[in-house]
């Protein structure tokens, strides 16, 4: 047996804080991220997702046609996840991505200016209001972007890219710090 023991540590634990009055970058707690994929022909399962997520205060984020993320700050117990996945069937399938993806928050009055250096998505509040999500390139890294408050965005990125994206965002933010 190998002596190697994988240690679970937050992907962005070693990153230095990036914060000023105009912009703040922070790693979000590595709680729960569930990827939901609807079966073909089952495009409108939003009411089902809302009914499952809302009572537990989980957020539902659209990803692409027939796909969503269910997001929660806290880790979800195995039992709760199992029953949630069971409730999705047979219309959709859930996949636990809690350790596979990492969330980053970027906020402040210069947050959208900094993000606009990396993505072509129009981040004006009229085109990208609170609750709106988009999957897009930020620089060279694909990420899922959601406006969660008037001046705050949540970014969901694959874990292996999280440090690179953080470093890119930190560099994009330098002039506002």
């Amino acid at each position, binding site marked *: 047996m190998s002596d190697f023991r994988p240690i679970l540590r937050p992907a962005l634990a070693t990153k230095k804080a990036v914060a000023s009055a105009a912009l703040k970058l922070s790693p979000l707690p590595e709680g729960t991220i569930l990827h939901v994929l609807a079966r073909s022909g089952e495009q409108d399962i939003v009411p089902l997702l809302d009914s499952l997520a809302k009572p537990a205060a989980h957020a539902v984020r659209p*990803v*692409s*046609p027939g796909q969503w993320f269910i997001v929660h700050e806290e880790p979800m117990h195995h039992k709760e996840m199992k029953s949630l996945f069971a409730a999705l069937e047979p219309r959709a399938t859930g996949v636990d991505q809690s350790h596979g993806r990492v969330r980053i928050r970027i906020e402040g009055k210069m947050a959208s200016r900094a993000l606009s250096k990396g993505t*072509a*998505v129009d981040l004006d509040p009229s085109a990208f209001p609170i609750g709106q999500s*988009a*999957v*897009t*390139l930020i620089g060279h890294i*694909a990420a899922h972007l959601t406006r969660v408050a008037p001046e705050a965005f949540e970014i969901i990125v694959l874990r292996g890219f999280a440090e690179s994206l953080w470093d890119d965002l930190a560099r994009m933010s330098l002039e506002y710090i």
Partner: protein
Amino acid sequence: MASLVPCPHCGQRPKEEFTIKGAALTRPAAGAEAADWFDYVYLRDNPRGAYEEYWHHTSGCRRWIVVTRDTVTHDVAASRDAADRARSEART
């Protein structure tokens, strides 16, 4: 970021978010002649003007789309989800 490609799901996005797969041709029937398959797999017209292409929105919604594009002007006349195109073809 130069060329913008309209995704039916995501809106205008830079071409860097996409992967181009080439001409959107109609696939021959499974039992078609070898010559038809050879044509489908290897031969392309490379037209000057209107062209239907498969694009994959790799760094976006990850859907295959069919873009009707002018190879001279890059004017995009239409952009559809490949599944919708397949469904409308199956009906005709």
